């Protein structure tokens, strides 16, 4: 259902008729547990309050949609393409372009409406430009050329396909597996230093869900690894990831000295929880819409948002962390449902 160009307007469809949730309800003592699918087809489980939060989120997403449409109406459909620093600020320094750039940054930090994500991401991340430097048939040729080839990378990819968001209504189907396989295998041949690194399976899967077409997802993956993230995040010994962890530790020490000192005293290495965040870009730890909000900023402003997000998560749990002296309780602080039911404040997104 998510796989083809013709279904591009899926999220528009979802958006225009977002129902008030009437989830199936299982009473469990005083708690009511509900289960439903979020905007991107992931199963969500939580209590009734969580369901209300999700309804609020959907309302906010709709509001954001209205704001974006209003801009399109007044400034033209592709107004945001004329704002990029290189094209606007450097070359023409036109006042309106500058205003647009500031507006756009603010808008993006509040979230790109799901229906516009493929288009906005593709142009603002540099994926479109990257794609335009090679012949149109690049992706198809690549896929055909590598078909049937077996390498250590393809073996590991095959192993992980059914283990990537198992149970998802599209990803966990033969069609979804085949699509994800082509993107990952194709990329492993494009850059043999990276080949395949576990973690990319989740990233590519979410890109497929957002971009709707395999080829666009492939280019987003390429621009992400080649231009957006720090170098060598995923190659042979994950050196880029080690660098990120180091930077994050220093940042935590500076911004949350009490938490840092407390964890240090317990001999708890923050990398124990943060490694997965950086390698999966939060896709395995945060709800899909929340993850994609982070990615909205990632593709426009760059990789520093990952550090800010990690810091924001720590800030949310400051009190709990300070009171905790058991390693498993610390780990529990970062357990997904708890993480996600707290509003994560935008303040940490500033500088």
């Amino acid at each position: 259902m998510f796989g083809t160009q013709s279904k591009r307007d899926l999220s528009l469809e979802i958006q225009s008729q977002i129902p008030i949730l009437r989830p199936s309800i299982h009473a469990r003592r005083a708690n009511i547990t509900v289960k439903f699918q979020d905007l991107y087809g992931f199963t969500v489980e939580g209590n009734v309050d969580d369901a209300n939060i999700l309804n609020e989120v959907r309302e906010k997403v709709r509001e954001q949609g209205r704001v974006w449409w209003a801009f399109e109406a007044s400034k033209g459909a592709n107004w945001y393409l004329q704002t990029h620093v290189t094209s606007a600020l450097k070359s023409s320094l036109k006042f309106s372009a500058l205003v647009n750039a500031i507006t756009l940054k603010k808008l993006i930090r509040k979230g790109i409406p799901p229906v516009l994500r493929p288009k906005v991401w593709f142009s603002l991340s540099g994926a479109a430009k990257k794609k335009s430097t090679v012949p149109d048939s690049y992706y198809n040729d690549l896929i055909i050329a590598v078909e049937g080839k077996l390498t250590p990378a393809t073996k590991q990819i095959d192993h992980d396909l059914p283990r990537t968001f198992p149970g998802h209504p599209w990803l966990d189907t033969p069609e979804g597996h085949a699509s994800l396989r082509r993107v990952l295998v194709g990329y492993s041949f494009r850059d043999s230093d990276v080949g395949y690194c576990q973690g990319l399976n989740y990233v590519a899967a979410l890109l497929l869900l957002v971009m709707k077409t395999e080829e666009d997802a492939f280019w987003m993956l390429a621009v992400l690894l080649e231009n957006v993230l720090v170098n060598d995040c995923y190659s042979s010994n994950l050196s880029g990831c080690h660098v990120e962890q180091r930077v994050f530790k220093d940042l935590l020490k500076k911004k949350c000295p009490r938490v840092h000192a407390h964890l240090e005293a317990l001999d708890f290495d923050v990398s124990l929880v943060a490694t997965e965040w950086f390698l999966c870009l939060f896709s395995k730890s945060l709800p899909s819409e929340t993850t994609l909000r982070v990615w909205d900023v990632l593709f426009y402003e760059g990789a520093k948002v990952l550090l800010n997000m990690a810091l924001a998560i720590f800030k949310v749990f400051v009190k709990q962390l300070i009171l905790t002296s058991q390693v498993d309780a610390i780990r529990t602080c970062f357990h997904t449902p708890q993480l996600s039911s707290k509003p994560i404040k935008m303040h940490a997104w500033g500088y």
Partner: protein
Amino acid sequence: MATNGHNNLNAKLVLLGDMGAGKSSLVLRFVKGQFLEFQESTIGAAFFSQTLAVNDATVKFEIWDTAGQERYHSLAPMYYRGAAAAIIVYDITSADSFTRAKKWVQELQKQGNPNMVMALAGNKADLEEKRKVTADEARVYADENGLFFMETSAKTAANVNDIFHEIAKRLPRAQPTQNPAGMVLVDRPAEGARAASCSYGFQNLGTLYSV
């Protein structure tokens, strides 16, 4: 140390082994009693805890289930540092995974805690018809290297609880006033299995809209 009837021990345990050997499945079986045909692949590491009663004491395992892909190797020291126990897992249907297991053993012997209790698990024992590594070969290796060895199956549950029990029994019980790294005596009742589900919960609710 004299036991006083509620002697509680915390022990950090790490699982190491090739990708796909069944580390996550063993933990899931032990902690939740479940088996999934398709277990989400582990990135970095996942954390679980589970408490076992052994004789007159309870042992609370703090379990780090690590990612098996070769390039994640550089992260491993962070997980086995200070561990009181390790389970090195291989898949009996893959000779490569056995070779990889031996490398882990060597590394732990060189870099790990010298008092670490080490177990070698030959997993997927239910796949007898595809076996590539004999139990004898593994047992000989384990004996030579001071590990204890069991063949396990996360699928049928064979020997899964047993291997954790055996580790719990072998953990050094006498605690000098100074605790060795990775082991902390706690003086409060053990938490139930509730804490066990720590790394569950996949995509869930949330909001970033507070401005």
